[in-house]
C-alpha cells in the first residue's frame, strides 16, 4: 500500500529493535476481552483509479452549482471563488500543518490568521475577531454562552428571523444548561419585533440576524438600544457577511458580539461544510472570547512575529473553566476568507456587495411584474421572500427537473409561511438567468 512505507525487512529489523517477535506482540497490553472477535467488514481496497471513478459517480449523482441554475441561499451561498484562492489553499505548507502551537515553524499560518482577524474586525466594525469557530450556528451558540458568562444572567432571546438551523443549534447547546432561550417574534415586514424585549428581566443577550433568514435588514441600532436598556448584550448574527460590503456594519450599529457564517468568502458550498464560524466582539470582552486568538509579538531579536495568545482562556490550560471546549477550529477556511478578501479589497467588496443587492432588486422587480408578490416590505440584501400562487409547488418541482432551483420553500421552517419561497440572487446570476427563471416560473 502506497501510504505504508515499511518493507517486510524493515519491519523485521524494527521488531528486533523493540525486542519482540511479531507485530502481534506489540499489543500484549490489549486484553482479549477488548478485542474484535472478527475482521473488519469493509469494501475491498480500491486503487486510486477505481476510487476516482467511484467518487466521480457519487459526485455526478448530485446537482451542483455548475450543473444547474440555482436561486437557493438560506445560509449557503453560491459565490464565485477566484482560482487564486484555490491555488493558495492548495499550498501544502498550509493545509498539511497543524494548529500553530510552535510559532517559529508556523509563521505562515499565524500571520495569515492575524490578517484574517484584522480584515474581519474591520469589516464587521468590531474590536476583535477570533481565529475562527466551526460555523455560523455554533458561533451564535458560543456567543450566547459567552454573554451568559459575562453578564451572569440566565436568559437569552433569539429572533425568530435567525436562521432556523442556527436557532436549533443554540437550543441544542443550551438545553442541558438550564438557561432559558426565548424566541422574539416577527413583525409583518419580515423583521424582528424588538418590542418583545421591553421589560424583559435577567436578559443576558438578544440575538438578531441581519440580513435575517428572509434576507431582510434588521434595525440593529434599535435592537442595541433595547438590549442595552435591559443590560444585555446585542449579539448580531449573520449568514451573509458580504452584506457588510454595502450595509452598515454590526459594530457600527452597536452590537456587542457579531458572529456568523463566513462561507461566502471564498469557500465552496460543499453540501454545507466545512464552513467558517466568524466571531467578533468588543475589546473589553477579549478574555471571554471562545476559541483561538493570534496576537502580535516579537522574537528574541525584536523582529515582528505572531503567536497563539491568551491561551489561559482555553481548554488545554483552563480545562472545565475554559471559555469554550473548542480546540481544532476552521483555520483553513479562515485562510480562504483572508485570501478572498485580499483579492477583493475594500473597493471590490463594495462593488460586489452592491452588485448582489442590485441583482436581487432586479429579480424582485421582474417577479413583481410577473404577478408574484414580494412577501415583506423591509429592505433586503441578496435574498428575499416571494409569496407564490397556489399550486406553485408543481411548477417548482417541474423546474427542479429542468435544473432550475426556483427558491427554497419556507413552510418547512415557518408553517405560517405556506406558499412562501426564499430566493437568493448573487453575482453568479445574470440578467438573462433571471429572465429565464421568471419565464419558466410563469409558463
Amino acid at each position, binding site marked *: 500500500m502506497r501510504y505504508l512505507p515499511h518493507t517486510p525487512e524493515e519491519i523485521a529489523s524494527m521488531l528486533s529493535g523493540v525486542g519482540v517477535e511479531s507485530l502481534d506482540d506489540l499489543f500484549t497490553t490489549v486484553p482479549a476481552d477488548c478485542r474484535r472477535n472478527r475482521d473488519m467488514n469493509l469494501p475491498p*481496497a480500491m486503487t486510486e483509479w477505481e476510487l476516482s471513478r467511484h467518487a466521480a459517480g457519487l459526485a455526478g449523482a448530485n446537482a451542483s452549482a455548475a450543473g444547474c441554475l440555482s436561486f437557493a441561499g438560506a445560509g449557503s451561498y453560491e459565490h464565485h471563488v477566484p482560482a487564486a484562492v484555490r491555488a493558495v489553499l492548495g499550498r501544502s505548507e498550509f493545509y498539511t500543518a497543524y494548529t500553530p502551537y510552535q510559532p517559529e515553524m508556523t509563521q505562515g499560518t499565524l500571520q495569515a490568521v492575524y490578517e484574517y482577524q484584522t480584515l474581519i474586525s474591520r469589516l464587521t466594525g468590531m474590536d476583535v475577531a477570533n481565529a475562527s469557530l466551526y460555523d455560523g450556528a455554533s458561533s451564535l451558540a458560543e456567543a450566547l454562552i459567552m454573554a451568559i458568562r459575562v453578564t451572569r444572567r440566565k436568559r437569552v432571546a433569539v429572533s425568530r428571523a435567525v436562521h432556523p438551523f442556527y436557532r436549533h*443549534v443554540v437550543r441544542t447547546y443550551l438545553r442541558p444548561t438550564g438557561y432559558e432561550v426565548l424566541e422574539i417574534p416577527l413583525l409583518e415586514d419580515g423583521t424582528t419585533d424588538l418590542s418583545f424585549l421591553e421589560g424583559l428581566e435577567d436578559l443576558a443577550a438578544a440575538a438578531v440576524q441581519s440580513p435575517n433568514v428572509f434576507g431582510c435588514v434588521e434595525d440593529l441600532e434599535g435592537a442595541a438600544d433595547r438590549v442595552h436598556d435591559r443590560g444585555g448584550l446585542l449579539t448580531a448574527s449573520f449568514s451573509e457577511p458580504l452584506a457588510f460590503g454595502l450595509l452598515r456594519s454590526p459594530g457600527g450599529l452597536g452590537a456587542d458580539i457579531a458572529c456568523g457564517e463566513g462561507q461566502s468568502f471564498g469557500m465552496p458550498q460543499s453540501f454545507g461544510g466545512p464552513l467558517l464560524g466568524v466571531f467578533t466582539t468588543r475589546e473589553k470582552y477579549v478574555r471571554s472570547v471562545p476559541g483561538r486568538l493570534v496576537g502580535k509579538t516579537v522574537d528574541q531579536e525584536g523582529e515582528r512575529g505572531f503567536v497563539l495568545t491568551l491561551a489561559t482562556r482555553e481548554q488545554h490550560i483552563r480545562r472545565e*473553566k475554559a471559555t469554550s471546549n473548542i480546540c481544532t477550529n476552521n483555520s483553513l477556511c479562515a485562510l480562504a476568507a483572508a485570501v478572498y478578501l485580499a483579492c477583493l479589497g475594500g473597493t471590490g467588496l463594495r462593488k460586489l456587495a452592491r452588485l448582489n*443587492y442590485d441583482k436581487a432588486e432586479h429579480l424582485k422587480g421582474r417577479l413583481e411584474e410577473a404577478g408574484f408578490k414580494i412577501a415583506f416590505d423591509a429592505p433586503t440584501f441578496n435574498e428575499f421572500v416571494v409569496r407564490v400562487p397556489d399550486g406553485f409547488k408543481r411548477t417548482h418541482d417541474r423546474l427542479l427537473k429542468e435544473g432550475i432551483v426556483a427558491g427554497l420553500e419556507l413552510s418547512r421552517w415557518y408553517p405560517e409561511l405556506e406558499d412562501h419561497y426564499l430566493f437568493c440572487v448573487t453575482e453568479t446570476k445574470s440578467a438573462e438567468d433571471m429572465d429565464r427563471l421568471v419565464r419558466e416560473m410563469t409558463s
Partner: protein
Amino acid sequence: MSEILGRTGLVLNEPLLWEKGARGRQGFSLPPGDVEQAPIDDALVGEEPDLPDLGELDVVRHFTRLSQWNFGVDTGMYPLGSCTMKYNPKINEDLAALEGFAGAHPLLPEDLCQGSLRLIHELQTFLAEITGMDAVSLQPAAGAQGELAGMLIIHAFHENRGSRRTKIIVPDTAHGTNPASAALCGFRPVPVSSNDEGVLTAGAVAEVMDEETAGVMITNPNTLGLFEKHIREIAGIVHDKGGVVYGDGANMNAVMGIVDAARAGVDVLHLNLHKTFSTPHGGGGPGSGPVCVTRELEPFLPVPRVVKEGERYVLSEDFPLSVGRLHAFYGSFGVMIKAYAYILSMGAENLEKASRLAVLNANYLKERLKDVYELPYDRPCMHECVFTDKRQKGLKVTTLDIVKRLMDYGFHPPTVYFPLVVSGAIMVEPTETESLDEIERFIEAMRSIAREAGENPEILRAAPHKCRLRRLDETAAARRPCLKG
C-alpha cells in the same frame, strides 16, 4: 546521508496585507453589472470597508511567501503527539474538489443530493464497523464537538430515564477538551488519577463512581500512549451505577482492526477524521469529529440523520429523543469525502496494518531513545510515547529548549507539556506513514540534541537558530494583546 536535515536558505520577508497595495488595485474578476442600479435607503449604507486593494499577483505572492514560513507534513516529519500527523493523500484533495461535491447546495431536495447522502451513509457504516459501535453521526465539526455531542447524548439519556446526574469522571490524563466539553453540558468533572503504570484502575473509578455521576470519559489508548487495559472492568463499575462510558477515540490510530470499542464497554465514542482517517489538519482545521454510539444510545444522536430507505438516502429529523442539531448543516462534508476516500483506498487489511505499523514506529522510537530521555512509563506503548526533560533539567535545559532545537534539525517538535500529569512531557507520535529512514533520522537528531544539552546547553536555550524568526515571546503577546493591525 547522516547530514543534518535542517539548514538555512533564502526566504523572503513579507509585510502585512494592509502594508501593501494601492487604492483601486483589483485582484478579483468583478462580474459586469448587467442590471440597473437599484435605489437603496442611504441610512442603511455603511462606509466602504477599510480593506487594502491588491492585485492578483500581490495576493498570490503574499500568501506564497507566507506559506514558505510554514512547515507541514509534506515538508517533513511532524511527530506531534495526540495529533496523528500522517500523510494526507493527494487524491483525496482532488476528489473533495469535484464539482458535484464542492458545488452542492445543502438544502436541495434529497433527489438532487443522492451522491452526498450515500457517501455520508456509507461513511457512517464504515466507522461503525471500524469502531465496533452500532450507529454514527458525522455531524460534529471536530473532536471537541464530537465530545460535546457525546456529553449531550449522555445528558439526554439520563434525562430520558428521569435521572439528573451532575458529575462525570475525567482522568487527569485527559485532553483539555474533555472536561471543557463536560462542563458545557453542566457536568462537573471529577478527576481520577492514573496509577503508576499510567493507566486507570477499576478501584480508582469505583471510589468516585456514584448515582450522581453521569459516567466516565476515557481516552483509549490514553494520552500517555498506553492502552487502558482495565477499561472493561471500569465500564462494568460505571454501568452498574447506571453510568455511561464515553470513549475519546482521538487515538484510534493505534487500534484499528484490533479493538472493539463496544466490547470494551464504551457506549459513546468520538473519532477525529483529521487524525486517524488522514484528512489534513489545515493549520488548525477544519476537522470532523463523528460520534459513534451503541444501539441503546442511538435514539439520542444528533439530527438530521442520513438513513437509507430502500435504495434512497434521506435526511431524517424524526428522532424525538435526539439531542438536536449541532451544525448549520450536516458537518464538514468536504472532510468526510477525504476520510471516505481513505477508507476505501486502504480497505480493512491496510487499516489494521496502519495501526500495527503506527505502534511499531512508536515502540521502536521509544526503545531507541529511552536511554537518553527519561521515559516515565517504560512499558509497551501504543501509537505514541511520552518522554520528559527530567535528565536534562539538571543541565538547565527544558523540554521547550529541546524541541525548539529540534527545529534546527528539520523536524516539527512533538507535543509538549501534555499530558499534564507528566512534568515536562515530550509526546512523540510518529504515525505509520513515516518510514524507517525518517524515524532513524529523528532518533539521531534527538540523540544529538541530548549530547548538545551536555556539551553546549546554550545552543538549546537559544534555539531555534535556523528558522526565519528566533524564539518568539509568548508572554509579551499575552500581556498586551495585539490581535489586529
